[in-house]
């Protein structure tokens, strides 16, 4: 999507939108719904150094390269050589286009030019006529028309020549762009009087403005009028980037909705993924807020590393420190980004070097990210933006960043520094980006028993079930881990206190275990003892039984002996036979 915006519509849109000529200025075509009015004249006014010439040139280059519309550049102020030289850095390959698709006409009045009486631009138009016929030009730019108008003796003559030019353009059906200087800073002020009627005459008028807001350069573009079409009437910030002008536009309702997926991407910390129910959503914007030193960068680094491990192209923008410092610092917690930088998968950008408004940051980041084809983007910290320029623009920039990353399905992770004094508790981030973010993770310190420990909590995460518990964030040389905090008796323990408490608990458990063992041993002993006793008693019992049996036997034998002995004795004595059934009764 972004690539489409940046690389501007290909040839087919040029033809389809027949009423408009795409300018190739990213953002401008969106504001105007397609570009400048085709076959009509547009006036571009702005103060010195406001970017008029670049805009004009970009319009021609785009036509020549993408729309098969050759162009003519009439240079009244700077020589074409200088213009080409100045535009060299934009990589438009002007030298290659020159003379074939892009014709430069030097029309600077020479310094020794003497003027006597009235003159007109008929000569120039005649030449342009011939040139147009030869090259088939469809676009034409008159750069700094004010220069030549200044030579005309009176207002009537100026007006006449402007009308001549306008009529000529209309008659040929050329898409014309006239640039003119506006005095002073305020482009819409009365200083424009000599072009006042021009603004009424033309079909489209664009004002470029370059001013300093709180010491920060701010460029704005505003479409003042555009006949027969609706357009964005507000001032839009713009920037002169590495490939020309870029206009910042907020997403409009008409834009294609972002591709919403349910795909999850890892945050780089396993426990955090669990807390979030699987990780961040692809294309979500994640905000990590916290005070300085709460490991925001570390979490961002973990995310970047995880992205690189998945093989996704990633960009890491650091505003705080140099990119090499970031790599070194993250290596100390086991996050090794160096290898991905070497392989080109990860692009580290140290944004300390970028100076300027929040707008500048945004456009640079967008450009870099598009060029890198980044699927994951880390900005650490985004709160820097509020420092340069005003908060209002920084907020709108943050909004557009979120919007842009969503449109591209880029997973965006921003950290935001909370001011220690201003919001001691989980306040909103300075840019109010917290309302835009899909997932908001807050990092905090917990001061306890002379220690600062890091706590992590998820304040919100749209569309995902997430843990509501505060976790302790632990950094070690093997990486980032989260542990449960120790909650007991309504207080949350972290760090050493948690460790102590856990230690004590472990000791107590150990003691219980030992005591149990001891008791078992004792019971075993008692059991054994009882067993032994049982055995000896059994033996004794046996002995007694034997004894008893013996006794019975003895008694029997004795009894037998006795009766036998009596019988014998009787026999021996010759005693009466005992009558059975009657006992020998002694008389």
């Amino acid at each position, binding site marked *: 999507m972004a690539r489409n915006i940046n690389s501007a519509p290909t040839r087919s849109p040029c033809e389809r939108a027949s009423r408009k000529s795409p300018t190739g200025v990213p953002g401008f075509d969106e504001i105007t719904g397609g570009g400048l009015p085709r076959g009509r004249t547009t006036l571009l006014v702005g103060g010195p150094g406001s970017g008029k010439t670049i805009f004009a040139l970009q319009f021609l280059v785009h036509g020549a390269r993408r729309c098969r519309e050759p162009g003519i550049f009439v240079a009244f102020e700077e020589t074409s050589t200088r213009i080409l030289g100045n535009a060299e850095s934009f990589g438009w390959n002007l030298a290659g286009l020159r003379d074939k698709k892009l014709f430069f006409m030097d*029309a600077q009045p020479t310094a020794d030019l003497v003027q006597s009486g*009235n003159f007109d631009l008929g*000569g120039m138009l005649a030449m342009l006529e011939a040139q147009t016929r030869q090259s088939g030009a469809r676009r034409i730019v008159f750069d700094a028309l004010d220069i030549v108008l200044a030579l005309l003796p009176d207002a009537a003559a100026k007006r006449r020549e402007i009308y001549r030019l306008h009529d000529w353009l209309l008659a040929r059906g050329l898409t014309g762009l006239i640039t003119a200087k506006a005095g002073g800073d305020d482009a819409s002020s009365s200083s424009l009087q000599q072009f006042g009627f021009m603004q009424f005459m033309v079909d489209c008028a664009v004002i470029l403005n370059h001013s300093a807001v709180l010491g920060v350069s701010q460029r704005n573009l505003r479409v003042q009028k555009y006949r027969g079409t609706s357009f964005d009437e507000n001032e839009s910030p713009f920037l002169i980037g590495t490939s020309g002008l870029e206009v910042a536009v907020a997403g409009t309702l008409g834009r294609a909705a972002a591709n919403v997926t349910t795909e999850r991407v890892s945050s780089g910390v396993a426990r955090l993924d669990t807390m979030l129910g699987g990780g961040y959503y692809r294309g979500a914007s994640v905000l990590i807020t916290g005070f300085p030193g709460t490991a925001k960068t570390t979490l961002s680094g973990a995310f970047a590393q995880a992205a690189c491990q998945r093989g996704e192209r990633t960009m890491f923008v650091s505003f705080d420190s140099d990119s090499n410092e970031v790599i070194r610092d993250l290596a100390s917690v086991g996050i090794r980004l160096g290898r991905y930088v070497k392989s080109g998968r990860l692009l580290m950008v140290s944004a300390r070097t970028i100076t300027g408004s929040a707008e500048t940051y945004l456009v640079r980041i967008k450009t870099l990210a598009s060029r890198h084809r980044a699927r994951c983007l880390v900005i650490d910290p985004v709160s820097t933006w509020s420092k340069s320029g005003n908060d209002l623009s920084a907020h709108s920039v943050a909004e557009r960043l979120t919007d842009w990353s969503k449109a591209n399905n880029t997973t965006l992770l921003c950290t935001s520094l909370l001011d220690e004094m201003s919001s001691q508790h989980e306040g909103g981030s300075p840019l109010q980006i917290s309302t835009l973010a899909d997932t908001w993770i807050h990092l905090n310190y917990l001061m306890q028993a002379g220690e600062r420990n890091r706590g992590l909590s998820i304040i919100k995460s749209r569309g995902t079930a997430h843990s509501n518990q505060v976790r302790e964030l632990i950094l070690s040389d093997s990486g980032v881990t989260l542990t449960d905090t120790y909650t007991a008796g309504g207080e949350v323990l972290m760090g050493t206190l948690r460790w102590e408490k856990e230690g004590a608990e472990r000791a107590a458990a150990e003691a219980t275990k030992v005591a149990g063992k001891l008791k078992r041993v004792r019971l075993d002993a008692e059991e054994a003892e009882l067993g032994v006793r049982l055995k000896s008693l059994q033996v004794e019992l046996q002995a007694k039984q034997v004894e008893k049996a013996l006794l019975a036997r003895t008694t029997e034998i004795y009894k037998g002996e006795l009766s036998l002995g009596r019988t014998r004795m009787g026999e021996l004595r010759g005693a009466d036979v005992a009558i059975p059934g009657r006992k020998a009764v002694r008389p």
Partner: protein
Amino acid sequence: MTRRAKSRPRPKTKPAFEFRLYVAGDAQNSAQAMVNLTAFCRAYLVDRHTIEVVNVFKEPKRALADGIFMTPTLVKLSPPPAPRRIVGTLSQAQPVMQAFGVEALVA
């Protein structure tokens, strides 16, 4: 040389003043310039000038090559020094004379 040229110009000798006037067809300013130039030459440069008229509508390439954007433009090709240009209807003689150094020659 100039004196001789003034008194009796010869077809073979080079004219003292060589002018080229670029005009945009018969546009008002151009026609005016033509009239003014003729009058000027009649007044100051009798018989020692040539005027070439270039119609930019007919010869746009030439005008482009010569870097003519405003019409009418009068270019003095000779005598030296460097060629000079005057843009406009030439309604005032004074700036024309100054620019071309005509006065000095006459005096």
